[in-house]
């Protein structure tokens, strides 16, 4: 995200407050406030209240979850009881495993596919009309509500009646039980994600490719570089920040997946497609075990925070 001029800072940075010693801190605070430039004070007066409000509103549920996680259904404090119950349920680990597999296997698929198609279109399709048509087609999967997506794919995958099986039958093949076979069910559910989000990746990558200066590309081609080298050294350089950002957002979304899986398989067969979100839903609403659900929620939130801290190092440094 470094293309274009950065916002820049207007005004001066505050002077480093002196002193150590017992009275250093309050003195430091007082000194630092008055030392800050007018602009910085303005900035903080704008930022802190708004951000503070949002932060509080968004953090209250977390605190509530923590409280509920350590209380029983009748309101008494039970310490780590709920947590113990949550962690001793083997279905939790299965859910984590399935979510991990889902993310690790299918996320790269949609990124690579989106990138691949973007490259393909960028290099071989010149007609603006065709590009526009592709653009419109790519828009559609993004705006379809998950519910409708789940229904359409059900219509495609169910045994006997599903379109795919009908086609298989008519061409003389046995039908494939997409939703009943454990390994296929995962694939079926993932295919929905890939179908829905590859266009999203495509749109971003395609737009990113438009920013690559044609002169660099021409120069490389004149020098006899192959398509692959051209990609690796020129286009990838311009795409990297966007690629990373897309990866981030999609990773977050894939780990949270819920809606279409709920409609397509309900977590089945058995618990094969019972990802983390679905597992939480089951504990909270099918089992009505709100204590355990809250403990799980806290664990999940802590885990996500840790995960984010680790991978955020790879995010392109913002301009300062």
């Amino acid at each position, binding site marked *: 995200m470094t293309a274009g001029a950065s916002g820049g800072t207007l005004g001066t940075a505050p002077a480093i407050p002196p002193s150590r010693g017992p009275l250093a801190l309050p003195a430091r605070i007082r000194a630092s406030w008055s030392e800050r430039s007018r602009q910085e004070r303005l900035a903080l007066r704008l930022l802190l209240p708004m951000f503070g409000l949002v932060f509080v509103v968004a953090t209250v549920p977390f605190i509530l979850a923590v409280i509920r996680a350590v209380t029983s259904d009748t309101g008494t404090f039970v310490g780590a009881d709920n947590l113990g*119950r949550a962690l001793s349920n083997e279905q939790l680990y299965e859910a984590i495993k399935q979510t991990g597999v889902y993310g690790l296997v299918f996320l790269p698929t949609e990124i690579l596919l989106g990138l691949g198609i973007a490259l393909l279109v960028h290099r071989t399709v010149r007609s603006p009309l065709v590009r526009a048509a592709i653009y419109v087609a790519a828009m559609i999967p993004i705006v379809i509500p998950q519910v409708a997506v789940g229904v359409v794919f059900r219509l495609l995958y169910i045994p*006997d009646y599903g379109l795919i099986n009908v086609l298989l039958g008519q061409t003389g093949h046995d039908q494939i039980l997409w939703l009943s076979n454990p390994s296929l069910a995962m694939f079926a559910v993932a295919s929905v994600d890939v179908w829905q989000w590859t266009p999203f990746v495509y749109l971003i990558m395609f737009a990113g490719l438009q920013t690559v200066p044609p002169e660099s590309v021409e120069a490389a081609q004149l020098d006899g570089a192959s398509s692959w080298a051209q990609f690796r050294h020129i286009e990838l350089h311009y795409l990297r920040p966007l690629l990373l950002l897309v990866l981030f957002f999609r990773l977050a979304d894939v780990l949270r997946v819920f809606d279409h899986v709920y409609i397509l*398989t309900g977590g*089945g067969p058995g618990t094969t497609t019972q990802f983390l979100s679905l597992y939480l839903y089951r504990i909270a609403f099918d*089992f009505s075990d709100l204590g355990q659900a809250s403990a799980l929620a806290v664990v999940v939130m802590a885990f996500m925070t840790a995960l984010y801290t680790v991978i955020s190092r790879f995010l392109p440094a913002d301009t300062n």
Partner: protein
Amino acid sequence: MIQRMKPVTLLATIAVVLSACSSGNTSSSGGGNVTLTIAAVQGVEDTGLKALKPMYESSHPGVKIQIVEAPYASLYTKLVNTFQANDATYDLVMMDDPWMPKFGTIGALTPLEPLGISKDGDVAQVVWDVGTWPPPRGAVPPSEKDKQKQLLGVTIVGNVEMFMWRKDITPNGPASYDEVLANAKAQNKPNFAGYIIRGKATNPVTADFLPILWSFGGDVFDENWNVTFDNAQSVAAIKFLVDDLKAVAQAGPSSSDASDRDRIMATGQGYQSSTWPGEINTAVLGPGTTVTGKVGFEPIPKGPGGKGVGMMGNWMLGIPKVSKNQQAAADFIKWMLQKDTQMTYAQNGGIPSRTSVLKDSSLQDKNPYFSVLADALTAPPNWRPRTDQWNAVETVIGTELNKALAGQQSAQDAATNASKQIRSLMKQAGYPTAQ
């Protein structure tokens, strides 16, 4: 441009104002104008209710009825949430009978007899019993033992699970599950399932399996809440489903729900299955069907022990304690119970609970299963275990059975795994489950 911002801000302001105005309670009872909000289950079960709405409104000026629908699982979640929120949105709630223990235990419903609803002899006793909490017979949850028995729900969909088969292929239906299997084996061929299994996880497969379980002499609990799902008879029943029946069933039964079963039957691709009355006219014999007049109905076949046990799944109407229109709601229920209303109800796709209506000759043509239903209700049929943990238990059973149907575990493992989980959750909930 700034000009562009202004319309957006204006729109947003309008939106916020509109939303503030529209967020008012719709059930107002001032000035004689009452709106009764009914939470109903989306699907075949509330067809009759929706047909009755205009009739009630025209014969009771000043009362408006708003029916809010939700599919089965969603309705349960919604009702539990609303009760927890002490929200007065709903004046009447449709509940499946296995939900009664939960709602009765949390005390969410108003006793109906003080509001003028009295038990009528024309309705089978089991119908009144299923709407009573704590239950008049069978195992009672420990926390409910000392509560006074009260009528909390009145049946408006008289549902008992029964059996259907293609009578154009074999004039007599199977009398026992042995015959079911034999017939299935004889009839099974490509594109024609010998038996249709409703095997989707949680509620669907459990609802389909329980009659088989009971007919084989097994059960989930005994009188003292000990788990018997892994005793010999129960395991035999599970084996029968996931081994014997599956071999002669449609492809991929673990993802089939009732709508799939109905479609298979209606398109002439299946020979027999269990069925709920509600499915019959709307789906099996509904628009587009190719099997009109070809399907026979009978009670659940007998198991090896010589017993055939039907399962009831009545839908009841209850009144939330926090509703602001208690008497108006009760009047509606009373009206629904009247014989003439029940006749109209039946003529419009509803399933009545009055024995005299079910046996009425004028309705037999369009509803060939009515008299079977009447007999099934007086038998009486079995009901699902009366525990507030039933939803969790059903989820466990449904998941393990589904796994077995998908070939991921054996019948014995399904029994063992399910029983283990049920024991731990019942103990956690305070039941005296010893083992």
